[in-house]
């Protein structure tokens, strides 16, 4: 018990605890800088230049200040894409929460064999987004799709899901909700499992029915988990790309912000303007993340 401190210090050389912490954090900080800070910084930098790979500005970018941003604000296609993205957020986030909650409640029921439901929960989540998009593209195909097949069997008319804008929007939302509600369900399931069983038992003793105990116990205690799921889902909903992209065969009748950024940079090779659009998208994601961080800090208090 006599002076254990110096012995530990000696085994790490001359480093103080602070210095040791510093050196241990350096690799992680470097990695973070390399994969997060540098690209974002570079993006901000490029967004201030006129840079098209299709002309001489590709090799000699011209500094234009905030002109790209001014162009974005007067670009009708940008506002349409922003509006479409907002619609996706407004429909698919609540949609995924409701479906996810139902799935989580189902998975939390005391079934004897639990794995089929849990597997069903995990599969959509494990599937790459673009595959989900391609699968649903076939489901909604007017000629070969299962959706129209069901409609025709029920005596309805074939609908042109993929090429009619209003129908396409709902087909996209349906696919996104299917894909993302399992993520929500996983978070909520974890939340459900930490609710103490005694609460339900004492509620039952007091004569509460199932509906009342759901409303008075489950929902309030699940609220933190629901909020976390909602915020994560909102951030990814703002970045929606894969599913609407894969469902349209390269078309852009329904274009989200991320799709517009890709078309402008990767296809049109207009890196300056594309970067400015990406910066605007980044700012939106950043704002949502700030809300999340604030909420997490609030929960700690």
């Amino acid at each position, binding site marked *: 018990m006599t002076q254990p401190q110096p012995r530990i210090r000696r085994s790490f050389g001359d480093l103080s605890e602070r210095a040791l912490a510093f050196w241990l954090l350096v690799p992680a900080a470097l990695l973070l800088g390399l994969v997060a800070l540098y690209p974002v910084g570079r993006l901000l930098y490029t967004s201030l230049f006129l840079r098209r790979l299709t002309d001489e500005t*590709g090799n000699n970018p011209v500094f234009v200040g905030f002109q790209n941003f001014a162009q974005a604000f007067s670009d009708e296609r940008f506002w349409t894409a922003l509006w479409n993205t907002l619609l996706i957020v407004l429909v698919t986030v609540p949609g995924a929460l409701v479906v996810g909650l139902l799935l989580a409640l189902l998975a939390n029921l005391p079934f004897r064999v639990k794995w089929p439901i849990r597997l069903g929960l995990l599969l959509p989540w494990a599937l790459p987004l673009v595959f989900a998009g391609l699968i649903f593209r076939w489901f909604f195909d007017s000629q070969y799709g299962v959706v129209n097949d069901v409609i025709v069997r029920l005596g309805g008319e074939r609908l042109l899901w993929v090429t009619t804008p209003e129908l396409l929007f709902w087909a996209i939302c349906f696919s996104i909700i299917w894909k993302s509600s399992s993520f929500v369900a996983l978070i909520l399931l974890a939340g459900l499992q930490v609710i103490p069983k005694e609460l339900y038992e004492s509620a039952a003793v007091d004569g509460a029915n199932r509906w009342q105990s759901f409303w008075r116990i489950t929902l309030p205690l699940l609220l933190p988990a629901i909020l976390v799921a909602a915020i994560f889902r909102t951030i990814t909903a703002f970045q929606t790309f894969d599913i609407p992209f894969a469902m349209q065969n390269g078309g852009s009748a329904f274009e989200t912000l991320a799709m517009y950024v890709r078309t402008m940079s990767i296809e049109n090779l207009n890196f300056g303007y594309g970067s400015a659009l990406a910066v605007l998208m980044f700012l939106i994601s950043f704002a949502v993340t700030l809300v999340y961080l604030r909420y997490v800090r609030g929960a700690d208090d």
Partner: protein
Amino acid sequence: MKKLFWLLVVVLVASMALAQQTRLRVFVGGQQRPDVMRKIFDLYQSRTPGVRVDVEVGGATSDQQQQYLTTVLASRDPSIDVILIDVIRPAQYLASRWADTIDKYLPAASRQALLRQYLPAYSQANVINGQLVALPGFADAMFLYYRADLLEKYGLKPPTTWDEAIQQAQTILQREGNPNLNGIGFIGAPAEGAVCTFLLPVWAAGGDVTNAQGQFSLTVEQAQRALQFWVGLMDQKVSPPNMAEKPQDTIRQEMQAGRWVFGTMFAYAWNRFQNDADSQVKGKIGVVPLPAFAGGRQASCLGGWQWVVSDFSRNKAQAHKLVRFLSSPEVSKILAIEASNLPVFPSLYRDPDILRVNPWFGQALPVVQAARARPQHPRYAEISEAIRVTTNQVLARQKTPEQGAREIVTRLQAIYGGR
């Protein structure tokens, strides 16, 4: 000690031999028959000791391939030496400085002699601002494929005008009474092929995107008539209402399953109809030039693939030698026989070995010679998007032909105006 010395000598000799071997990496798309390309590279390797050619296979469509190549080339990645690019891309490769132009390795006199051997359309497509950007690998154009058995059954001859084609399709559909059979198939999905769909009637009516001086010249009226023509096919029930969903290869697959009377497609379809194991139309398909419009002329859309040397290659001299081989008559003939790729040399269209495998190549030469090229522009990607997405929206009846025409003309005007 002695053993160690000899080991060192062996390692040294081996590494020198390895260093002498040049490795070239060639990029080809998934639909450009990488299996046949491999055979051609093997032939080249056997004749050129010290050179090894690796194949990298990319996406299936022209757009998918270019998206990948853009990331590789924009980051100045030296790993790819030679690339097979679509006929619409040389202008972009020159403007972006992705191509090591062929001129550097060719004296002006022999350049003239070389270019004179090719079909004129391909010499033109590869010379941008006086610089020779790439050399042609194989030709392509759109043709009208028809069900020879069905036409014969009703005593019909292959159509030479669209009106005839529409009437024949209506007759056959009515008499066959088969709900799975459709009339005239064309590319309606918003992929690159839809640019050709839009331009075919424009060209046939004597119009084009630019005039001879390269200035923008498309009028709203020309564009509107072109869009109206394809919408009209759906109105007349010779094409089903879901044409906006159909890319070229879907039409090809459906025609292969016996579901179309007519189909407008590029040359690759023939080989699939004749040779695919699941083809239900083997020996039942005929090919003719695309029909003409009443009072107009016949027009086809020029396709084809070009060999370009990457400006970031570390073995440019060797890569150029390979490209000269790949754009030679010998390789053109192999591609014609093994992959039904149309030759880029006019003389090969009379080659008996090629005609034995592809009897219709005799008729194909005038079509390729008369085929029109899509606009050449460094910002072709934007031109393509404006045309194919809007054409698709008109076919999906999200926009009227008039609205679509106005949108296409306005957007193209902005691109040609440098905005």
